[in-house]
């Protein structure tokens, strides 16, 4: 698909048009000083910050909570407890200003969720406009996870920011659809070569951590000597898993009030003791060490063994916001040395 350019002066009009047709979301600075996903109204072209927004875009595909169905909970009603299709309240969406790691996380989550109707429907209705990175942050390590600052996996359109405007490369039909307007021009030869150069520069150091970890013996990694030390500092909260774009575990519950009920699917975390608590009272991961180990083993061994890539895109959110500085990069290093 042929790239096009929208000049900076025209970008606002384009975004306004998109906002009329889609629900458009972008990273917006909050009062607390970080960026979070907010609905855009077309009055501003958001500044896309270096690095990722605070919360990942998994909220758009795996909302907290997902209403799976509703039901009437009055036992006197002959129709009681029959699932009712929930009221679906979203228009097709555009996520504007996604970083390549977050875009890739959607492609990774689609592996375990390949038959999940909720996830798949949202994915179908969502167009991801990925802004390629010129520069990473201290906590970025996409290249260690099989991604790249200029990667397009999971994206529907790739955007390179130039002095003159945005260099737009549609990746999928959904992405191409966003170029159905009159605001664009063909890129100049110079623009094309700048975009090309940036990609070449950024793609240099991609490492294949996944195949190295796949080749290791599972029990050797499981019994690695450092788990106790990692677990010792961990407070077993959900900060890492809830912020992580590739943590997709959930629990299901019925909520009923005054004759009405709904079944929700909400975020759960392998760091919580309740995650594995059996009805019998037995808990196979009853100790913190086992839970901490599971989070990393799932991402770095079980997932790659099953699906190929590791289940981490190197966004660095867990590194940045873990209250006690548990750093997955150090755990990865440790596992590579086993």
């Amino acid at each position, binding site marked *: 698909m042929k790239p096009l350019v929208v000049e900076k002066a025209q970008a606002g009009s384009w975004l306004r048009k998109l906002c009329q047709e889609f629900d458009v979301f972008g990273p917006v600075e909050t009062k607390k000083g970080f960026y979070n996903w907010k609905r855009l109204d077309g009055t501003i072209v958001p500044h896309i910050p270096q690095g990722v927004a605070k919360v990942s875009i998994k909220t758009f595909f795996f909302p907290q909570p997902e209403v799976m169905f509703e039901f009437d909970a009055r036992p006197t009603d002959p129709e009681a407890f029959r699932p009712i299709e929930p009221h679906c309240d979203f228009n097709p969406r555009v996520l504007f200003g996604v970083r390549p790691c977050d875009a890739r996380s959607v492609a990774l989550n689609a592996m375990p969720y390949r038959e999940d109707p909720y996830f798949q429907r949202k994915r179908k209705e969502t167009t991801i406009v990925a802004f390629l990175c010129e520069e990473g*942050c*201290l906590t970025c390590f996409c290249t260690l996870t099989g991604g790249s600052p200029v990667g397009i996996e999971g994206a529907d359109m790739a955007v390179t920011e130039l002095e003159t405007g945005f260099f737009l490369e549609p990746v999928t039909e959904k992405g191409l659809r966003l170029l159905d307007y009159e605001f664009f021009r063909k890129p100049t030869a110079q623009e094309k070569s700048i975009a090309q150069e940036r990609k070449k520069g950024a793609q240099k150091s991609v490492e294949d951590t996944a195949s190295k970890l796949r080749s290791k013996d599972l029990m050797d990694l499981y019994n690695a000597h450092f788990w106790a030390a990692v677990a*010792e500092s961990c407070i077993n909260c959900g900060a890492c898993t809830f912020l992580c774009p590739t943590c997709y575990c959930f629990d299901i519950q019925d909520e009923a009030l005054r004759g009405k009920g709904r079944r929700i699917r909400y975020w759960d975390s392998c760091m919580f003791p309740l995650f594995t608590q059996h009805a019998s009272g037995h808990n196979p991961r009853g100790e913190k060490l086992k839970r901490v180990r599971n989070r990393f083993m799932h991402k770095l061994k079980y997932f790659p063994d099953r699906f190929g890539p590791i289940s981490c895109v190197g966004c660095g959110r867990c590194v940045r916001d873990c209250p006690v500085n548990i750093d997955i990069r150090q755990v990865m290093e440790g596992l590579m040395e086993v």
Partner: protein
Amino acid sequence: MSIVNQKIGGEIQTIASSLLESGEVAAFLGYTKGSLPGMMRPYVARDSGEAGNLSWSSFCVINLANYLPALLRSVEPPRRPNEPPPEGQLPKVGVVATGCWSRNMVVQVQENQIDRSRVVIVGVSSRGMVDRRKVERLVGNREITAIEEEDNVLIVRGKGFEETINRWDAVRDNCKTCLHPDPVIYDELAGGLSGDRQIPDRFHEVEEIEALSVDERWKWFQEEISSCLRCYACRNVCPLCYCPTCFVDDSRPQWVGKSTDEVDTALFHILRAYHCAGRCTDCGSCESACPMGIRMRLFTKKLQKDVIELYGFEPGLEADAPLPLSTYKVDDPEDFIITAGKKGDQK
């Protein structure tokens, strides 16, 4: 490098190393350097060699008392659940404690969470810990690659900039209003003591909110918690939260919904705060741990103020003082109990 903190760090290493070397303690809980600027990692040294990894800085924001009960259990001889501990002295652990952490240890002793005779406390007078998010804001939220600490300034570096900021400007709000930076109980000291501080308006953060109308206060509360993820970092990092099953996790009966529904999140925060009333030392761990920058510490601070006003009590200052919420006196104030009249009418 901060001379004061470097000196404290060195003394912690020496004390920990000799405690471990002599076998006086089986483990020593302190801090080690983290992998990011402005981050320290709680750390347990188990031999004198590992004591060399201990470190001290203005970024030790997580209350170490939180780790003590589990650490004490971890050094006990293994035994089956419900089997009583063996006779005689169980192994001890060493721990670093600032003013508020030591006060939480007093509360832990009062509430039977730790055995004082098994803990060797190395007291440190806190100079006020720094909030790394304040540092970020002070340099315009630019990406920071290094923070160098001197006694009264922080030198903050990033790509293409170097700025020197006043350390006190970046100190956490709770530390700025702390009256007792010195440890209340200790067995050894690293660094000197500095004495109690005088802060006439230490509840100004709470008073500002109290001055608002009921509706404005509710709006403030809802806005403050609107981005809460229910990750429970604030709860898990707090030494007061040790219930085997927290009320938010209970499912029979289920007190609180599990997702980020507004009402459920509000209920979580209100109940958490009330469970800390008369026990919270305003250590600020919860606020420092929150990934979303939510100032839930102000909820407990309000209750701290109420407990002082109603019962004249501050937690953790005296080992044998009765705990206000588990003690009944005939003349206890009860003006806040709504007995009659219409909703919200307090008399």
